[in-house]
């Protein structure tokens, strides 16, 4: 084991973490703003992957990268209008049940349309041949994922921090009732935020699909680690999600070097340790889900 090899394993951890972060971002945004624990988020990721496959087969990858997130935004808005908005004032259990049910419906819908077989969703041609990055050869696509994740996190931060809409969203997280009295159409903002969360799932699906594979059950498969990322980071905290996503990615990657079988439990182990130490998660705020 030399330094280059260790760096390679660290890079793999970063890349695994990037996928976790991508999925967890939308999840934590929706929870932080709307207070809804969205169990259908994995299913939105899965739909992103399926659409990514279908559209890239028909028109090429670049079109898919643009069109899929937009489509998911529209799907997200439709879901919020038709279903989710009726559950804002109902107990968390109801919200979990309805989103979980939605996830199952979407999953079986995709199985119905595309069958249960994995669809060979390839990367673009320029990303097929591994590149030499000084410490060894690496699949370019996984580097792209890291880059896209950094860009998305940055854009989301700027959007929430420096735009008027972001200000309203953040205010809405604090006190939606007061915001309503001030003459701001809160439900409309909520719809938009849910659409934005779905859009993030779409980006994750369209770029993550070539790695996770495209099957009806990938939604559920990515949902569990993503929820752990959100919980470890602190419910509703975007920086927390980024931090814990990277932490879990590195934990998974490095545990292979130390004791391979432990990769199967390492994320749960990290979750247990972090939550014992900080019950609200790494950067969790007081009063959330308490």
């Amino acid at each position, binding site marked *: 084991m030399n330094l280059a*090899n260790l760096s390679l394993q660290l890079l793999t951890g970063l890349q695994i973490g990037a996928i976790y972060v991508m999925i967890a971002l939308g999840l934590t945004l929706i929870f932080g703003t709307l207070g809804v624990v969205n169990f259908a988020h994995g299913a939105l990721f899965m739909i992103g992957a399926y659409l990514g496959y279908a559209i890239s087969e028909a028109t090429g990858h670049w079109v898919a990268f643009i069109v899929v997130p937009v489509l998911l935004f529209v799907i997200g808005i439709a879901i919020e209008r038709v279903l989710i908005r009726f559950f804002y004032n109902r107990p968390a259990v109801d919200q979990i049940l309805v989103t979980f049910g939605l996830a199952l419906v979407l999953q079986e819908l995709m199985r119905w349309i595309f069958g*249960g077989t994995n669809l*060979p969703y390839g990367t673009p041609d320029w990303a097929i041949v591994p590149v030499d990055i000084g410490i060894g*050869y*690496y*699949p370019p696509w*996984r580097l792209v994922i890291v880059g896209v994740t950094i860009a998305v996190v940055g854009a989301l931060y700027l959007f929430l921090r420096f735009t008027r809409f972001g200000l309203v969203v953040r205010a809405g997280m604090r006190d939606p009732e007061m915001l309503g009295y001030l003459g701001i159409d809160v439900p409309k903002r909520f719809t938009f935020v849910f659409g934005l969360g779905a859009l993030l799932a779409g980006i994750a699906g369209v770029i993550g699909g070539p790695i996770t594979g495209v099957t009806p059950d990938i939604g559920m*498969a990515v949902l569990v680690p993503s929820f752990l990322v959100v919980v470890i980071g602190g419910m509703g905290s975007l920086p927390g999600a980024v931090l814990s996503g990277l932490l879990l990615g590195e934990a998974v990657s490095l545990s292979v070097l130390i004791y391979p*079988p432990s990769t199967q439990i390492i994320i749960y182990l990290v979750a247990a340790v972090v939550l014992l130490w900080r019950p609200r998660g790494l950067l969790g705020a007081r009063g959330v889900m308490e």
Partner: protein
Amino acid sequence: MTNRKPPLSLPLSRRAILRGSLAAGAGIGALSLGGPPLVFARNAWAENYPAIGNFPIKGSTVKFGFTVPLTGAYADEGNDELKAYKLAVRHINEGGGILSTLKPMSLKGNGILGKKVEYVSGDNQTKPDPARENARRMIERDGIIMFSGGSSSAVAVALQYLAQEKGVIFMVGLSHSNDTTGKDRRRYGFREFFDAYMSGQALGPILAKEYGKDRRAFHLTADYTWGHTQYESMKDATEKQSWHTVKNIMTPLGTKDFSQYLTAVLNTDADVLVLNHYGADMVNSLTQAVRFGMRDKQVNGKQMQIVVPLYSRLMAKGAGPKNIEGILGTVNWNEKLTDPGSKAFVKAFQDEYKEPPSQAAQTAYLQTILYANAVERAGTFYPPEVIKALEGFEYEGFGPGKSTYRAEDHQVFKDIYVVRGKAPSKMANQFDLLEIVAQVPRSQVEYDPKMMGGELGPYIPNKT
């Protein structure tokens, strides 16, 4: 009005006459032979067997149970198996398929012992516990006389123990672990599919011939009974060819992203990657290994190679032809075989489902027919008699040459195949993904039943 009465009275009287003569015949038979009335064949005799499991059967139909994975890592295989089971039931009831090619064949295409076959099916999620619950419900609620299914050897082993406990025969579907007919062999379980040991024996010499003797292999292995035994078998077979085993990492069944394991492979000087994966696991690990450049890489001055010991067309399709081109592995059966049985089965399957069957479908179909045939030959559904009819049964007319259900471990022995992924440019159609490299003779893959240990257990359950 006038002809109302005669039709009513006539059959009644004929039946009465028949009944009388039957009774008389039985009496004469018993008297003359001084024992049971053998004239009336084994059907009548069946009533004298004690009840086991869901035997004796009440009514004019008999029910099979098919528990297959419709979700989980082996969902593709499970879906294909279910299609094959439905086809097998239809052929048993109505004739067709391999009923005219398999020898010896006692089925007449009118059900089994005159009873029509029905079936129930369920999703076992590729997991032993749901599978056991699934099968238990079929046995206790639906009253099935036989069940079949898979995939996953973990499921197969769990169901074999259930079969033995309940006294209901289990015809194993897709299962490739040595344990299934090795240390976990059961009197009530039968496997037609080949096993990991046979794959290793068949593949070893061909790997050495293709890739040379001085190779260093890294294994990634699905973490359950099948993966474990395949790793052991491949390790033995390749080390016999003086390959060196660098390391093995167990990966959980259902893993989506293998990058952390693949990076660990790159961190060694291994020049062969052996993927002891199947189904969706193999699709993911192979695709990702190719993306990590493992097929273009030079290690120790040699071209790095990937080996997939257990191949299937469904996986080849999932991984895509570009990724499987040139990769070697073994299969139990292939839809391109030209023997009359394979042709009849492929045609029937293709007519029904518009695509050729996989090897998972083939073993599922054959197992169902073999069970039905054994019952017909035994003349009874009484499980111990059916088991005896299957033990040591030799047959041919479906797949390669003569096959034998070995009595000592309930494993079928026959020739198996080494295959290679076809180049996309050479594919005749979208299903034409694998080419047969060699038909490995049975003698090369056979082994002593004592080698793997295990006890079949008693013919009559609950008396262990």
